[in-house]
């Protein structure tokens, strides 16, 4: 593998609201495993804020991870050995392999060598090119900075690269403001390829471009992959672009990879509830009759939902996905005091207490029977109700017991990996 990341995690410190408060931690990337083979295109798709760019930067060592590791140019059998050490808890074995391959363990010349073996093309062609430098300086900068070649050689290389990305030679003397969006992105690509890297991260390479220009850039990227066998990670929110370009697809949600596998499986036959919704939301002429419209928004990463981070929006969520007493109480209030108000004591109140208790106060005799029936009727729509394990009466109170929850791991399912408790198999029965 050109690149393999294991349990890669990146947290940012955010200023607290009050001057005395502890700084808050925002986990932008959470325990990500990802790998890229030689000449392989791996897609990372997700909505804004899901951690795609942060993952890309951490993979290249531009950000240092809070946990986990990135291994560069590691033979497949060594990687298997490494995964074996990790599984068996052999810290020493794992550390010795990290010593050899981790990009975070390299210094000096070795680090420089690795650096010239990988590169990034950024999201926004309008701000990623220095406006004071001409195209020649932009493209040759990485060559000279890494002492990759002598200045006169670098000029030749620049001309070669311009040709490679389909720009006339005289563009070498233009400045960014004299280029169109597509031309800027070609220059950024030429710069990214200058040192003939083995690994390239492309962050939203076409998001700022018109579709006609996007098509040109995408076919250029394919050509480059064929010719130089560069391993690429393409980051985008555009599922169709991923579908066109990638061999392997990783779907990110709230810092986690929720589904990962071959494009044909993940895009055409998704299994994670989020991927299913994401792909059904792609607009198009063939409006799907079974389109899933997700409720709400992506979660706050400073204080993410417990259990499965997707559970508050998940159309398939069930009892152990992470429901809290507060989440259940919101739905119960609607049922008890509004939708079915006539069926309960007028004074019935839903309340939550410390330690996650959930109680209905001032219940009349027989209310728990009604409640039980209503919960059964409504839990198809209100997934939070599936987490209610039982009712118990204490005087005029009905106490509700909430099921324990689990945090999904990566499970193998139908040719891909998926992080959803629906696929936990035996692990689920525990």
């Amino acid at each position: 593998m050109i690149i393999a990341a294991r349990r890669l995690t990146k947290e940012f410190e955010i200023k607290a609201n009050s001057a005395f408060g502890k700084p808050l931690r925002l986990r932008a990337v959470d325990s990500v495993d990802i790998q890229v083979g030689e000449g392989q295109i791996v897609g990372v798709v997700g909505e804004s804020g899901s951690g795609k760019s942060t993952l890309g930067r951490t993979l290249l060592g531009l950000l240092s991870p809070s946990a986990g590791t990135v291994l560069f140019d590691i033979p497949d059998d060594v990687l298997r050995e490494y995964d074996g050490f990790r599984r068996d808890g052999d810290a020493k074995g794992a550390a010795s392999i990290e010593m050899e391959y981790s990009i975070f363990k390299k210094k000096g010349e070795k680090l420089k060598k690795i650096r010239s073996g990988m590169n990034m093309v950024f999201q926004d062609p309008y701000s990623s090119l220095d406006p004071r430098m001409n195209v020649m300086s932009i493209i040759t900068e990485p060559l000279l900075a890494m002492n990759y070649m002598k200045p006169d050689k670098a000029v030749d290389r620049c001309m070669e690269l311009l040709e490679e990305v389909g720009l006339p030679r005289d563009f070498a003397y233009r400045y960014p403001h004299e280029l169109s969006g597509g031309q800027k992105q070609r220059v950024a690509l030429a710069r990214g390829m200058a040192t003939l890297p083995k690994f390239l991260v492309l962050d939203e390479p076409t998001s700022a471009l018109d579709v006609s220009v996007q098509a040109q850039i995408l076919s250029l990227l394919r050509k480059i992959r064929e010719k130089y066998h560069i391993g690429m990670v393409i980051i985008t929110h555009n599922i169709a672009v991923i579908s066109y370009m990638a061999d392997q697809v990783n779907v990110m949600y709230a810092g986690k990879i929720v589904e990962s596998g071959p494009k044909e499986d993940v895009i055409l036959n998704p299994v994670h509830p989020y991927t299913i919704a994401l792909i059904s939301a792609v607009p198009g002429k063939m409006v799907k009759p079974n389109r899933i419209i997700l409720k709400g928004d992506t979660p706050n990463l400073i204080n993410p939902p417990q259990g499965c981070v997707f559970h508050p929006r998940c159309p398939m969520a069930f009892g152990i996905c992470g429901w809290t007493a507060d989440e259940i109480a919101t739905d119960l209030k609607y049922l008890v005091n509004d939708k079915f108000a006539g069926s309960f004591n007028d004074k019935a109140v839903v309340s939550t207490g410390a330690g996650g208790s959930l109680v209905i106060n001032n219940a009349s005799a027989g209310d728990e029977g009604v409640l039980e029936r209503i919960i059964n009727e409504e839990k198809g729509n209100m997934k939070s109700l599936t987490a209610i394990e039982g009712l118990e009466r204490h005087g005029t109170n009905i106490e509700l017991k909430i099921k324990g929850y689990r945090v999904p791991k990566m499970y193998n399912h139908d040719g891909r990996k998926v992080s959803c408790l629906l696929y936990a198999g035996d692990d689920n029965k525990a």
Partner: protein
Amino acid sequence: MEYTLNVSNLKEQFYTRRGIYKALNGVDILLRKGEILGIAGESGCGKTTLGLTIIGLLPRNAVVTDGEILLDGKDLIATLREFASKEANNPNLRHSENIMKKLNKQLINVRGSRISMVFQDPMTSLNPVLRIGYQIAETLMVHQPEVLAKRRLARSKVKDDDLREALKLLENGADEQSIKAFAETRQLEGIEEQLLNIWRRNDLGIARKEKMILSLRSERLGGFDMAVLQRVVSQGRIDGWMRIPGLNRMSKAVLIKEGNTKAVELLSSLEIPNPEEVVKMYPHELSGGMRQRIIIAIALANNPELVIMDEPTSALDVTVQAQILDLLKHLKQRFNTSFILISHDLSVLAEVCDRIGIMYAGRIVEVATVDAIFNKPLHPYTTMLISAVPTIKGGEIQGIGGAVPDMRFPPSGCMFHPRCPYVMDKCRENNPQMKYVEDEHLVACYLYEGQKGEQN
């Protein structure tokens, strides 16, 4: 055929130090009542310029050199044409500013109430320091103060009996007409809208709605407020004495308060959860999707005949975009408004539009139903635009060679000719006119000459 909007041969130029940009070069649009027309095209083809011109918001360096914009048959931009014909060759931009002032005055009763626009840049649309409810209330107060006044007066007159009666009607499935008739016979005009809006809420259960309807009466009106509201109803607007400083604030307060109440109803009709809380929030407290819903709510607040939406979902994530597109489909069924939906993304338009117009270099070069645009595109540009977009099903894509022209020096003849694979001699010399090739299918391209009659 009755058209809400009829734009013909609209031409517009921007005067800059670096030259004259020919942004619009003869745009034609016919928009029916209740229809959604999509406008698609690459960046810089003039989509936003077109939208802004229809609503009469032009930058000061813009000159409309020709064309008409008719809203329900009335010309909106005669003033602009007049200016251009007087100063055709070297317009004085200072004069242009005066013209804009004049235009603004003319359009004061059109903009925001008969035509409204959702702008491309979502950050500029909401005022960051005002609460959501206030911002909605303000547009309502400016454009329809009498509607707010009637609502409030009706609540001060209504009796418990009336409300119980109304509730019974609603529970028995009464339609809009009969609720209206009910309000009229009891001289409670203004109450019908509130009854229906509460009754239609999906976020509340029946018990809450009953309670809300039965408590519509409880608010009392002071003497001053009563006088203000009665005056607004009889004049149909906020008139003279209410503008007197001092009185101004006080007389508006009652209208703004009522606007807030109506804002809650509007937000709930846009499927915004907890609208009572949302009206108290500031824009930054809301997610991008919520902000966009509120911007749409403001655009729809006064029941305009035409709403122009410029890239309403382009800044949103796909799952949120799907929510908004779903909402637009519902709105179309509920309001009898015509929409122009601008997007660079054809597949977004495919979801909600009845017809799509393809724009290139300041002209609409093809208009047809969504089906025809995708299954039977005629203009070479349309074909290439569609085949440039990757789909999730995979399959090859085709880039369009060349680039959009520099509109200071637009190409001769058909402006697409430098990029067109089928270019003929006459394409370089003459500009093809829009022609009907089939009912509902118009195209401006010499490949289809003589297939059917001229545009009529």
